[in-house]
């Protein structure tokens, strides 16, 4: 499946043919990705798909074994100071130093970013309800996430990188994080790169979505484009099927007896003929949710080819 990609000149993040192995395991396999300036780019994938590995390459914490990674046109490994000075990063488990207090964290982080907005930082701190004298080790998980988000956002970074930031958090905190994402995008020219397996969040805020599965990008585009390419067909067979029917181009097949549901990716034009050849007819055609598309792709043994 190919979707139009912005040229690398417009891209805040340009990943080209990136591959990475950890011993025998291939974490990323020929991944190409372009994150356009402005807006929210959502990255979805199951656990172990390669989302965090990809994000670490963007941060320069991993060096590309093959391919290139450019952030703001720069290599984050060669020029980490310039690149990181324009990135705000929040990870799934913010490893904030427990001995620091909230005000110390703000003061320490502020020193690294000339664009640190003191009033904005103070407003975020008050909004998140963080006591400046409180040690980070005594904060709850949600409060630590907020402290990490404060440190990531207060300097108004050109790129806000969130690696499963709401994992394990309650709905209130997740909502605050999403609002922070929206606030960032409201500022012109700023970009958010947001990875998660909470698809409703991705669906809610993302302009562009990419899915990584077993180290490969299986789809990339706007939510409308993705939904337009995928279809869920209900097939009714003349005779009851003992085993799931084998249908070329199907991402997933589920059902029993005479009625089977087929998830397709870009094969809707040829499916009626295939169904007829198998002795089935299409009785319903549905637009799948992102969740269904995700499950269909994640459940395949090998990524489907467009």
């Amino acid at each position, binding site marked *: 499946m190919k979707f139009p990609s912005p040229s690398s000149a417009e891209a805040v993040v340009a990943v080209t043919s990136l591959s990475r192995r950890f011993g025998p395991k291939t974490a990323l396999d020929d991944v190409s990705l372009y994150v356009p300036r402005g807006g929210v780019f959502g990255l979805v994938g199951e656990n172990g798909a390669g989302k965090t590995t990809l994000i670490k390459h963007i941060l320069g914490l991993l060096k590309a074994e093959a391919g290139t990674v450019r952030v703001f046109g720069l290599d984050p490994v060669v020029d*980490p*100071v310039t690149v990181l000075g324009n990135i705000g990063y929040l*990870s799934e488990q913010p490893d904030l130093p427990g001995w620091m207090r909230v005000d110390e964290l703000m*003061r320490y982080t502020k020193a690294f970013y000339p664009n640190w907005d003191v009033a904005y930082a103070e407003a975020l701190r008050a909004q998140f309800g963080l006591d400046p*004298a409180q040690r980070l080790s005594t904060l709850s998980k949600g409060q630590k996430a907020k402290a990490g988000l404060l440190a990531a956002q207060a300097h108004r970074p050109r790129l806000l990188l969130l690696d499963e930031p709401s994992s394990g958090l309650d709905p209130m905190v997740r909502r605050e994080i999403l609002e922070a994402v929206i606030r960032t995008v409201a500022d012109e020219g700023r970009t958010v790169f947001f990875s998660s397996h909470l698809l409703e969040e991705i669906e809610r805020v993302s302009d562009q979505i990419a899915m990584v599965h077993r180290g490969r990008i299986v789809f990339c585009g706007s939510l409308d484009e993705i939904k337009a390419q995928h279809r869920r067909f209900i097939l009714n067979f003349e005779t009851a099927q003992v085993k799931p029917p084998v249908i070329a181009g199907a991402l997933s097949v589920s059902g029993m007896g005479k009625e089977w549901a087929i998830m397709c990716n870009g094969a809707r034009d040829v499916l009626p003929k295939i169904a007829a050849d198998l002795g089935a007819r299409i009785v319903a055609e549905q637009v799948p949710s992102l969740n269904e598309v995700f499950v269909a792709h994640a459940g395949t043994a090998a990524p489907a080819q467009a």
Partner: protein
Amino acid sequence: MSSRLATLAWEIWCRGSRSARLAFGCVAGCALINLIAQNRFSASDFGPGLFNSLFGLLMACSLFLMMGVFNYTEFSSTREWNGFPYRLFTLPLRTWQLVALPMFLGVVSVELLYLAWIKLVWTHDSIVRPEWFAVVLGAYMIFYQAALWSLAGFRIVRLLVLSLGGVSSIAVACLPMFDEVVPSPWFSETRLIAILLFLAFIAFIVAWRTVARQRCGGGLRRHWIKILLERITDALPRRAKDFSSPAAAQFWFEWRRAGLLLPACTSLVLAVIFGPFSWFCRNDPQATVDLLLRILLMPLVLAFCVGKAFVKPELWSTDFALPPFLAVRPLSAGEFVISKLKVATLSVAATWLLIVVFIALWLPLWADDTNLNGLMVKFRMLYPQSWQTIIILYFAGFVVLTWRCLVSGLWIGLCGNRSYYVAASLLQVITVALLLLAAGILSDTIDVEIRDNPVRLISIALSVTGWLLTIAVIVKLWFAVFSWSKITPRCAWQYIFIWLFATLGFVVLGILSRPWADTHRLEHLYVLAAFLIFPFARLGLAPLSLAKNRHQ
């Protein structure tokens, strides 16, 4: 029940099997040397006792390794400490069983190791009081584990207590020997064994109760110490100003994490060991001289130990990777390293300030400085024009060596590879062991040469030393050209200037302090050695190592 305990025992073995094999490997190697030495040196005057130093070194290393196997701690993300493995608290086992198993296995393992040493290696010299040393080893294994688990939330205090425990074990092991000098029923071996066993039992009870409290969340009593400490730290003045630069912020971060450890260890050793000892020996003039030398050497020893942790990206973590919190800061690897070097400088300065203050109070107030004054008189007679300069330069030399002990391993510690770090530490031990082995093998030959041709031997020794120093200087400077080529010119020139200034000082020291009857022209050796003191070549690799760690 027994299968659960067996499973836990298997897990302990899996975690530490490599170290255990290495520990017993040391015994095997020394046993082989002992066997060969017995056959070869049976007719000689010295016999296998030539290798006593090597055996002693490797025995100490193997015992440390075995204690490391039973360092039964894991990092708890909820408590943010290295303590008793938190994940075991959900197992269907009583707390006393969880605590007793690693203690029992630890005692058994260390006693087996000790037995192997005395039966297979120390066969030529019978160990005096072997049962007493066996009891000391077993008891201190229990004390060690009890301290690890009970003081898990107090990092620096635990470190200091463990250090003190290690030092005290030597003193305690020597207690029965005092019976020959100062006969007393309290120095009898039987009574001391009973006391030690009783204290070990108390330590087990303390560990059991503490771990039980940790298992159920601590309760009210757990918090009062932490609350008190936090109230004290809250009351202390804290920085409220903004940082002037990212480098200043990073310096503050590193200082808060690692800067106070060396001065804290030094002050504890001064307060607990040297202070009382100096008071007890206040009427002994020779003890004053010995104690002064030990006080001056103590920061080097402490810095060597603290430096093993200081060179890592995060001092208090067992992980060698650069923490992501630091890795994503827009700061170059060079600036990270510079902040560590500055913290080391300030830490060493604070340490030596404590030493100077202690000496300034001790010598005039309660020390018997008769012998010391005599030595000073002789010294001033030998160097009438330059004695003050020599003393200042020697003091500066001690300070620089302390700093070197802290930072010289940065290029290894920051690279993020645990294997390199362990290999570098092992190399230091292996080098010393090989030198001792060589000394043992060649000692007969050397003794014959000393007896028959002393002048020739001294000449050869000085020549070899000179060549070795020359090669070392050349290698150092050549390596420095390579390692500093990647550093920004401004930083490189700044450090080169500091290195030149310091090296010049040591060269002057070498020239001024050479023996006035320098028949062997040792001056060139002092000058060559002066070039090797201040760290240069390997430090240039530290930013590259950190960059490699940061961008894996």
